[in-house]
């Protein structure tokens, strides 16, 4: 569902609020040249866990559900990604299969950048590269938080309920 005219990131009103999108002019021009913007329906799967990584997806608006799956089909929700987030970044940087599944919760504008183009873009633009490193460390922090909450809670009761302190 590729739209015929490619809207430029320069005209985007959200841009100053977004960590990744707020790049210097020069970098933004280069980014505009390699990106392709599409509108995706609600429920569309941007990428599935285990598939070879093609590139990154930047959510312009809308939300996406990130989940992982076991061999027998059980699914675990990781988190909901919001507008401005970059999805599939880790897998694209290392060239490994996508580690999560991303499914859109709303009809969304999505910007796609192919892996090869992304790597070249990052090599040319140091600021963007630093930004990517920052975002990856944030993803990692969130993942470790999740490991902690899953792995170190022994109780079978809902994990949100904490024992009350006796008054």
């Amino acid at each position, binding site marked *: 569902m590729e739209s015929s005219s490619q809207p430029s990131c320069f005209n985007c009103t959200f841009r100053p609020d977004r960590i990744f999108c707020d790049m210097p002019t020069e970098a933004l021009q280069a980014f505009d040249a390699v990106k392709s913007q599409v509108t995706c329906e609600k429920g569309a799967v941007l990428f599935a866990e285990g598939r070879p990584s093609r590139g990154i997806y930047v959510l312009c608006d809308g939300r996406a559900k990130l989940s*992982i*799956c*076991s*061999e*027998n089909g*059980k699914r*675990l929700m*990781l988190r909901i990604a919001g507008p401005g987030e970059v999805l599939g*970044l*880790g*897998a694209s*940087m*290392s060239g*490994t299969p996508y*580690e*999560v599944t991303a499914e859109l919760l709303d009809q969304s504008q999505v910007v796609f950048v192919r892996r090869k183009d992304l*790597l070249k873009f*990052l*090599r*040319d633009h*140091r600021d963007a*590269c*630093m930004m*990517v*490193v*920052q975002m*990856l*460390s*944030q*993803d*990692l*922090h969130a*993942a*470790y*938080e*999740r*490991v*902690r909450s*899953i*792995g*170190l*809670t*022994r109780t079978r009761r809902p994990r949100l309920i904490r024992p009350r302190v006796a008054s």
Partner: protein
Amino acid sequence: MLSPYGLDIIESCLACKMRADHIFCDLPTAALQSFEQIKYATAYPKGAVLFVEGQAPRGIFVLCKGRVKLSICSTDGKTLILKIAEAGEVLGLSASVSGKPYELTAETIDPCQINFVKREDFLRFLRDHSDACLRVAEQLSEKYNTACREIRSLGLSHSAAEKLAKLLIEWSNRNGESAKAEPRLKLALTHEEIAQMIGTSRETVTRLFAELKKRQIVQSKGSTLVIRNKAALKALATV
């Protein structure tokens, strides 16, 4: 040079022979030269704590030789081992980049040689060398991958038996033994540590190993474990 802990200390990264095998270290000469100036080559004994979860980030630790245990801890003192880091890995990376406290505790399990780089120096180094920056991104995504795997195994497995079977299969894959009919692997960890890796108790791990041996699925010879029945182990892992 007389080296401590039986390690063969390599003072200069430029002369290091292992460099080509390590993703992060295999930098272009210019970047390597400036890395050389900001790093401190150090040696640690077994059981040394490099950094503790919650501490403000001081910098990164490049593991040249030896193994390091990465764990997280709950407020009531339970420990979960995330990974055993091996030579070539960079530790404390995401905390140093983002400036948030270290999210893990790193403790050496062998005598280790480690190159330490201060946080400010490292950030400046990354800004100047885009190659290194890409390497760092690669390392971070690898760690993210491991964390996702850990979440999957902890969050989606039913039983401790399933998790132990998965761990054994993963280890035998890593040693390149998976193609053999009876893969062997060296158990470098204690039952206590294995329990902390899969989030269960030491007693359960011991009981599970005894069960696996009784059912002739595995056999132990000293610290070497032989997987006698690969199919049965795989079946356990995918219950």
